[in-house]
């Protein structure tokens, strides 16, 4: 079976470049669930995405702050829910998910029950050497269309 939405990148720069292009297609209320082991490039990916959204500020991991908000073409809500697993429903995350910006959730699978049904899961994994693999898994019509669009126009990586 062909997996239509898989990319391989040779470097961290390529990952960022891809994320930057992806950002151009994002709309208010989009939710990206970001998966991948430590070092797979989740924060690198988000930094590229932030640049694509026109965020001027430097983006770093929100591990301890849980949520960071950045101003860009659209607001970017960058979350790391690694530490909130059991309290996720106390945070009021829906205000971000259904808000005016783009939500990026690192370790999203840990809070599966509170995620919106429709979302784009981005799974990053380490390949040979510096190579990174990126898999996009759309859920819901909005994200299927988004992936088609990216597949059509995004010429980078391999």
């Amino acid at each position, binding site marked *: 079976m062909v997996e239509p939405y898989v990319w391989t990148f040779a470097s961290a720069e390529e990952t960022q470049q891809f994320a930057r292009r992806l950002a151009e297609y994002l709309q208010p209320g989009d939710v990206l669930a970001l998966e991948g082991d430590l070092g797979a490039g989740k924060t690198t990916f988000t930094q590229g995405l932030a640049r694509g959204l026109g965020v001027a500020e430097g983006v770093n991991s929100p591990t301890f702050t849980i949520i960071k908000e950045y101003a860009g073409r659209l607001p970017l809500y960058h979350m790391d829910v690694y530490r909130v697993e059991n309290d996720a429903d106390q945070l009021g995350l829906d205000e971000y998910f259904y808000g005016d910006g783009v939500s990026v959730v690192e370790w999203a699978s840990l809070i599966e*029950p509170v995620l919106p049904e429709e979302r784009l899961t981005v799974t990053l994994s380490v390949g040979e050497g510096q190579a990174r693999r990126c898999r996009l898994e759309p859920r819901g019509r909005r994200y299927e269309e988004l992936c088609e669009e990216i597949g059509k126009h995004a010429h980078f990586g391999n």
Partner: protein
Amino acid sequence: MRILAIDTSNLVLSTAVVEEERVLGEWTTNLNKNHSVRLMESISQLLDSLDLGPDQLDGIAVARGPGSYTGVRIGVATAKTMAWSLNIPVIGVSSLQAVAANAGGYSGMIVPLFDARRGQVYTGGYRSGPDMTAREVLPERIILLRDWLPMAAEAAADGPVLFLGDDVSIHRSVITEVLGEQAQFAPPFFNHPRAAGIGWLAAKQIGRAGNVHQLVPEYLQLAEAEAKLKARGCST
């Protein structure tokens, strides 16, 4: 007795200073703007225009939710901080009851609701008491609107049900579909909470205010741990 009342629990930012028999001043906006930036400014402008200092307040009233988690926290944290530092009592009032209070005197069932996303609403059923206070007759909850409407209709017997809240407009077609002519809708100025009403509701209970630290936000969501505990049949 003079009470400063605050509501930041939803889109509305409302502040008021009330006495038992009189509303001295009220400031309300209904915009998606940063409550955390604007709340203190609103309080200070209101007090300034009334020539009042914080030391002339005898209590603080706050809408304690349900609503936006962030919004509820801004209001409750501010109210508790002020009450603690001024050493005066603080009273939490339900954000839903604050909206229901707008329809005091209505003879049917009063149903305030806030959209809670994913088809759900924060809501409850109220009836107007002899003193025009809206009394809770169906406990507040978060529920799928589709599940809630038949319950509200049944509790109202054949009587009319008045839906209140700015989010009613999002759900109006479903409400009409289920309740038909039993459903009534209010003019816009009934739909948002007013701090003056919150102050008035709080004034009735201020004698029973507990320790400042006892006031907690009301999110109307079960924490996952609580939900699991209940599913196992334990009481909390």
